[in-house]
């Protein structure tokens, strides 16, 4: 009967808790949007840094880059920097030190001279695809200049040969020129290849923030709901124990009902995030973990006056450190290493791995440890309160 009673309590709390959490999320969303807008304004004033990976010793290529950096109008917007290797460049990209890097294959210039199209790989993250299109525009510009100048060269050669009376030369030479230019124009799409690295674990930025929003929703739900659930007079618990309902049975009943409530609310949230039913079902371990942690906090800090702020700070802190607000790649390397071992960090990785179809056992194990630990800590506290 205690489980039924707890379900009834939970169902009565459902609308208020959901509304409270949605309002909280909207406020946080508006705040984040405001900050991002301010940041975007700052970004526009900054130069875009692009790493160059490849043999820059090549005189033509080196000259080209130096010319771009000192003479071209793009020097006010783009700063090129030499990277030692692709690995160094990839790390710099993850840390956000550069917006993209260009991978120039060996013998690139020779291939250009021959008229072969060996592609240059342009690597960027999805949040910098705007830079990608900018660079692509630059490349198209380069091609058009190349074609136009080639045509000028062909016509100039024709005129020189005509004036020299060597018309017999340009039949074969002109044909070779035309073929080269045609080869370049037709194959211009092959001169670069765009590769997106993903913000974290290969997730697109939309997927990443959908996972972040889901985890944040669950974390912040505790602020609105769990203090109310745990604000029961300790006399009830004591009398229930006298009647044979031990501390762990009481807590289990509360845990089951709260988990179902939390999952129900997540279901509503998931509809906005366009999650599939399978995905919603697979998020149950995260819901179970968050429910155990929130009830544990309520058990140790009963009452909403202190409990709700603690829940809020806990949710915001864990959410921030676990990359729900920003991708973890923005954090120092040591923090990044610790994130997978944080409960919300493991939950974020779990949600991300679910989206990309990767293995989730490790994350499940970490969440299991935290969930079980929280559960037993809460039962321990309940026992202590009953004994008081």
């Amino acid at each position, binding site marked *: 009967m205690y489980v039924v009673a707890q379900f009834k309590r939970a169902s009565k709390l459902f609308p208020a808790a959901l509304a409270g959490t949605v309002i909280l999320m909207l406020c946080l969303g508006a705040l984040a949007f405001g900050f991002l807008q301010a940041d975007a304004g700052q970004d526009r004033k900054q130069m875009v840094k692009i790493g160059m990976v490849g043999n820059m010793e090549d005189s033509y290529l080196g000259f080209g880059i130096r010319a771009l950096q000192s003479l071209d109008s793009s020097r006010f917007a783009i700063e090129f920097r030499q990277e030692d290797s692709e690995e160094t460049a990839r790390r710099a990209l993850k840390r956000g030190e550069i917006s993209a890097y260009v991978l120039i294959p060996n013998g690139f210039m020779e291939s250009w001279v021959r008229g072969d199209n060996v592609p240059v790989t342009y690597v960027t993250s999805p949040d910098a695809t705007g830079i990608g299109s900018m660079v692509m525009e630059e490349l198209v510009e380069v091609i058009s200049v190349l074609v136009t100048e080639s045509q000028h060269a062909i016509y100039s050669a024709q005129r020189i040969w005509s004036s020299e009376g060597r018309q017999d030369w340009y039949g074969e030479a002109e044909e070779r020129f035309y073929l080269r230019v045609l080869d370049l124009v037709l194959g211009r799409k092959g001169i670069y290849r765009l590769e997106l690295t993903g913000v974290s674990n290969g997730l697109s930025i939309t997927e990443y923030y959908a996972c972040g929003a889901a985890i944040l929703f669950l974390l912040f739900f505790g602020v609105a709901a769990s203090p*109310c659930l745990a604000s029961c007079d300790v006399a009830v618990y004591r009398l229930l124990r006298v009647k044979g309902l031990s501390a762990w049975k009481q807590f289990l009943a509360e845990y089951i009902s709260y988990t179902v409530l939390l999952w129900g609310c997540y279901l509503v949230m998931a509809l906005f995030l366009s999650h599939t039913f399978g995905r919603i079902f697979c998020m149950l371990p995260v819901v179970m973990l968050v429910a155990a942690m929130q009830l544990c906090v309520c058990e140790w800090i009963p009452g909403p006056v202190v409990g709700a702020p603690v829940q809020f700070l806990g949710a915001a802190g864990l959410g921030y450190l676990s990359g729900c607000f920003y991708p973890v790649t923005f954090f120092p390397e040591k923090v990044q290493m610790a994130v997978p071992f944080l409960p919300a960090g493991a939950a974020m990785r779990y949600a991300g791995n679910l989206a990309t179809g990767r293995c989730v056992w490790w994350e499940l194990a970490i969440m299991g440890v935290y969930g079980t630990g929280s559960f037993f800590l809460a039962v321990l506290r309940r026992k202590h309160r009953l004994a008081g």
Partner: protein
Amino acid sequence: METMEIVDVRKKYRRNVVLDGVSLSVGEGSCVGILGGNGSGKSTLLSILAGVRHGDGGKFLWQQEDLFSNTKLRASLVGYVPQGIPLLEELTAWDNLRLWYEKPVLERELEDGALAILGVKEFLKTPVYKMSGGMKKRLSVGCAVNGNPRILLLDEPTAALDLICRERIYSYLREFKAQGGRILLATHDVQELELCDSWYILKKGALIPYRYDGNVRHLVGRL
């Protein structure tokens, strides 16, 4: 005849001795009033007898069976109304009662049992947070008397209640006594004292028998 005895119950909080070998017996159909100043240990004594707190020693005997060790028997024999309100605030009176009663028993009790005397039916669908103090107390007593207990432990059951609510509870307690029940009542209230058949003052951890004759000034002098 069934016997109920409390023998040498002891309790101390760190160095503070609250109950120093408390002993008494309660006869069938009688009510024993425990008097004492604030912090004298009345609530502690009742909560230990109810099993809510653990004592440091002593026995709670029913027919020579120690209820401290036989918790199942104690749960079936003892009803306890603490000072606080042991109710789930968000739920209605019905939902709270369902925690303690089987549905057919509850329906029967509401018709012509203890719950009918307490008048719980009047606010059966009201959530606890919307109830008055009197309603909550009547409901608490109603929850405590589930399973027809033989012993009732009441900790200031009518404190701060109006006359109508008090009368409802007193009616039930008189009925309970008439049916052979035993009541142990911790109180400060003169009206409640008049309900009792014998009185004890709890002072410095010991129970001192007292003869209450309506002289409150004399009683105050002894506390």
